[in-house]
């Protein structure tokens, strides 16, 4: 039975904090690591021990497997949690950790490798009977075969030039009547564009959503699912807002998808927390995309609806504990939404906005959770992912959750850097989002256009604030007197009350 008492957390930011919290709740000691850019970051200040591991670029610190193992040895850590990103899906690091006699908190290097290759995992999944987006990879020449294949996979289908790219030589075909003419046109276009008329066929997934299933597996062959997350709201193919349950997933599909996810995990003897991602078509079909062999950024929404602490679960599974609940013990309770708060400027096409946070106040109150990796005074470094925090809310219903999420976003205060907080309020207000019927194409150029046109009233208030701020600078009597107004209230108050008593 693997035992450990002191966990090295090989990460930074909110996920390092998340893992530290899980360790502390289980009474484990922790070792934080930090680059020169992160000395004052919360994860350093919360851990039992903290060690500097190098220069700010990740390649010189957070990605230095050798340094991490050396620190583990020097600090007496007996387990390593990789978080997500960085070395979390690096099978070589996992192996090195185990070779050093430490407990690796994650799946086996074998599972990481098997799921790490796009083509390898597709083959493995096909063998395991997991549905993949249907298609041929070889060129089709026989029209009769084409018709048969299209019938088999169902319309609409996509004809793609094997040598293609940039949309050239691609034809969407919606019904059988157009198949052959489309095929001929695609071949001819392909020949003209690329000098190669090889064309293959793939199922066209209409109005796709990104839906994923959380799984947990112990060392003894028990693999459970913790339902789905909908991650279709994306910018630049990166998730920005996730929710669970998926507002349009029929129960029968949820069950089927969950079973497939368990199948996928079992196919690689998966142990720990993992996520199986699917493309979910508007027609109800779903197809395996990939499996992430680590804790997912958006895991908190699953925690909110199931009550299971996934980071603690990772640790307990790694300790050799058999799963302490059965599939039937798990239910989805209410609705949860996560907003990834980035240090970036949504109005400038989400360009990064690192810098020093000069004022910071997180929202609180009922069913609001913030997982963050920053504090006031912290300088968001230029070297890493711009995500500074995740706002997670829960509600009994989806509408409750949306209303509460908007309330929490209103409350969230960050000064000194730009963030995506305001952007999320626009997402939540969007009728398509409200309806629950949206796709991965939700964030359109038009949506972004709307963002850059600030609200008239809000701009007017900003102008007033700027003018007053400037006025105060222009009329500053002396430095350091910025709190004078507040103190004046209190001074006046004290004076009044003591005066009154005397009189």
């Amino acid at each position, binding site marked *: 039975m693997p035992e450990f008492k002191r966990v090295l957390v090989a990460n930074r930011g909110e996920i390092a904090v998340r893992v530290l919290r899980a360790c502390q709740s289980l009474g484990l000691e922790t070792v934080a690591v930090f680059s020169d850019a992160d000395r004052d970051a919360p994860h350093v200040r919360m851990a039992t021990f903290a060690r500097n591991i190098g220069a700010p670029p990740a390649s010189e610190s957070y990605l230095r497997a050798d340094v991490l193992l050396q620190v583990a040895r020097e600090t007496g850590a007996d387990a390593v949690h990789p978080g997500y990103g960085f070395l979390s899906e690096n099978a070589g690091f996992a192996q090195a950790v185990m070779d050093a006699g430490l407990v690796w908190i994650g799946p086996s290097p074998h599972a990481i490798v098997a799921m790490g290759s796009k083509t390898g995992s597709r083959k493995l999944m096909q063998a395991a009977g997991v549905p993949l987006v249907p298609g041929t990879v070889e060129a089709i020449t026989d029209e009769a075969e084409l018709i048969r294949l299209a019938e088999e996979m169902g319309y609409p289908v996509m004809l793609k030039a094997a040598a293609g790219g940039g949309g050239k030589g691609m034809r969407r075909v919606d019904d059988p009547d157009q198949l052959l003419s489309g095929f001929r046109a695609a071949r001819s276009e392909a020949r003209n564009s690329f000098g190669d008329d090889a064309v293959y066929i793939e199922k066209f997934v209409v109005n796709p959503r990104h839906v994923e299933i959380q799984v947990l597996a112990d060392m003894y062959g028990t693999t459970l699912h913790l339902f789905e997350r909908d991650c279709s709201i994306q910018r630049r193919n990166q998730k920005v807002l996730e929710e669970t349950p998926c507002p349009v997933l029929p129960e029968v599909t949820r069950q089927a998808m969950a079973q497939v996810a368990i199948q996928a995990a079992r196919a690689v003897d998966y142990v720990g927390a993992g996520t199986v991602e699917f493309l979910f078509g508007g027609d109800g079909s779903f197809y395996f995309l990939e499996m992430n062999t680590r804790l997912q950024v958006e895991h908190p929404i699953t925690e909110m609806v199931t009550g299971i602490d996934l980071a603690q679960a990772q640790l307990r599974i790694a300790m050799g504990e058999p799963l302490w609940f059965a599939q039937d013990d798990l239910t989805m309770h209410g609705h949860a939404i996560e907003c990834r708060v980035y*240090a*970036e*400027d949504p109005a400038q096409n989400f*360009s*990064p*906005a*690192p*810098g020093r946070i*000069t*004022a910071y106040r997180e929202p609180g109150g009922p069913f609001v959770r913030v997982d963050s990796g920053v504090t006031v005074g912290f300088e968001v470094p*230029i*070297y*890493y*992912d*711009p995500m500074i925090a995740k706002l997670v809310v829960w509600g009994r219903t989806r509408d409750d959750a949306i209303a509460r999420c908007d309330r929490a*976003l*209103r409350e*969230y*205060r*960050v*000064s*000194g*850097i*730009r*963030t995506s*907080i*305001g*952007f*999320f*309020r626009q997402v939540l207000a969007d009728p398509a989002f409200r309806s629950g019927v949206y796709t991965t194409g939700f964030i359109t150029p038009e949506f972004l256009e709307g963002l*850059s*046109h*600030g609200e008239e009233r*809000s*701009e*007017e*208030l*900003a*102008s*007033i*604030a*700027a*003018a*007053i*701020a*400037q*006025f*105060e600078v*222009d*009329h500053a009597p002396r430095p350091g007197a*910025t*709190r004078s*107004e*507040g103190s*004046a209230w209190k001074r006046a108050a004290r004076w009044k009350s003591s005066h009154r008593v005397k009189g």
Partner: protein
Amino acid sequence: MIYEVTVGEAVRRVSVDKRDGLYFVSVDEGPVRRVESLKLGQVLSMLVEHRSVEAGLARREGGWDVSILGSTHACDVVDPQRKALRLAGGAGSGALKASMPGRIIGVLVEVGQAVSKGQPVMVIEAMKMENELKAPIDGQVVEILVEGGQAVESGAALMLIAAPA
């Protein structure tokens, strides 16, 4: 005191008076509003005719970044009297400055080369994202102050461009 505040395309003339610790503000000669304003660190807590508005402040070149309810508005603030002075001074020299802290990963022009306003001249990387920096004016590159790979602070001068004589 009157300030010209530019947010996006909109320019507003904001008149500000302070009496007995209270501000009296009018925008574009509209009604005068009473503002009780309290500076708390980098945050301005305003009661605008009793409406509570919290504005995060960050100094920016030529004004303030003002955050209200999670959205940041870049506000250029000009005192019209000083503006007049400034315009009277020399014009046409273009210093390209870093719009964010980051690392220079590409210099797209050479010294002596002619550039036109808006032309990408440098690429800066921050947080795994590449961002093009554009020439602020038409002109000729006079000096390049940084090298590829170099880390720079926000506002650092990167390149000097001389306007055509």
